[in-house]
């Protein structure tokens, strides 16, 4: 991990500033651009073993940020879609249907997939990959507090939506 992070710090992190300005030009919003770059950095980290296959990591990272920025423009839902519309894009089965079928785990899966993609990525890093906040902050080149706030928002939103569905 330490060794890999040193490599990542040398090859990928220096591109950060450039990636943010590329994204800002597309989404025209500094905060969103920042989130998109953080998400890209997490994705690059998770595929760090395969980065050697690309002739230019910079070109690859740039393309990834461009694609994510365009995705962001297409789905302009900074706070995620309202609960009522969840059934439209959850692959046929809505969270409340899943709950009725006692498939609460699948319901959680759908709720997480509705989160903003940076929050999804942070939840994945923390709850599934088992990284600490400091490690995530290092990889995304941000403050630990920013990561914590994002993580907390993501978890609270899942709790809120899940409990709401349970009460129905």
């Amino acid at each position: 991990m330490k060794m890999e992070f040193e490599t990542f710090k040398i090859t990928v992190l220096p591109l950060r500033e450039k990636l943010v300005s590329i994204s800002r030009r597309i989404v025209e919003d500094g905060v969103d651009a920042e989130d998109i770059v953080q998400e890209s950095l997490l994705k690059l980290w998770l595929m760090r073993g395969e980065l050697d296959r690309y002739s230019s990591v910079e070109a690859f990272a740039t393309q990834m940020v461009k694609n994510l920025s365009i995705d962001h423009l297409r789905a302009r839902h900074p706070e995620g879609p309202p609960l009522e519309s969840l059934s439209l894009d959850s692959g046929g089965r809505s969270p409340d249907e899943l709950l009725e079928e006692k498939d609460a785990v699948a319901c959680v899966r759908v709720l997480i997939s509705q989160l903003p993609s940076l929050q999804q990525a942070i939840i994945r890093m923390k709850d599934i990959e088992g990284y600490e906040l400091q490690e995530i902050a290092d990889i995304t080149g941000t403050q630990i507090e920013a990561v914590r706030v994002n993580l907390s928002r993501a978890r609270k939103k899942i709790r809120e939506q899940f409990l709401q569905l349970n009460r129905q």
Partner: protein
Amino acid sequence: MKMKTDDIDKLIERYFEGETTADEERQLRVFFASESVPDRLSSYKPLFAYFDEEIQKVHPQRLQANEVKHTTKLWQTKKRWLYIVSGAAAAVLLLLAVNRVWFPTDPCYCSDNYVVINGRCYTDIHTVRAMAAEALHEVATPVDEYFPKADVNDRERHVVDDQLKDLGSMFNDNETNE
């Protein structure tokens, strides 16, 4: 694993503030996978069950996320080395065994006691003992006692000395004649 509900409540609160460590989150997952979850907390079960499921997918070798990622990795490297070293050791042992079957060594060297006289090996226990006793005696006895000046065979020694002197003078003569 038994946990006080107070501790769990605090841990859950910190979890939603994003303040828990990876290890504390593992404790939460273990707790919510257990039978001892009180009803008022049971609505959290699916969330942690979902994470358990995903962890199984990402790290199928990890059982119930009981180990921290880094120790697993370390153990894997250790295990790989263990395989290499034990493989090499097995190969050496096999070679030795084969060697033993095809080229059996002199039975002499398998025996506990042996003595080599004029390049031949004797395992006969009496010969060995006799030679050992003589060698010990030679070491333990002071030189003067071992070659006493007033020997019983004093005359024989003189004879030998004379012969040696003759021999020596013969060589000297040969050299001077040439």
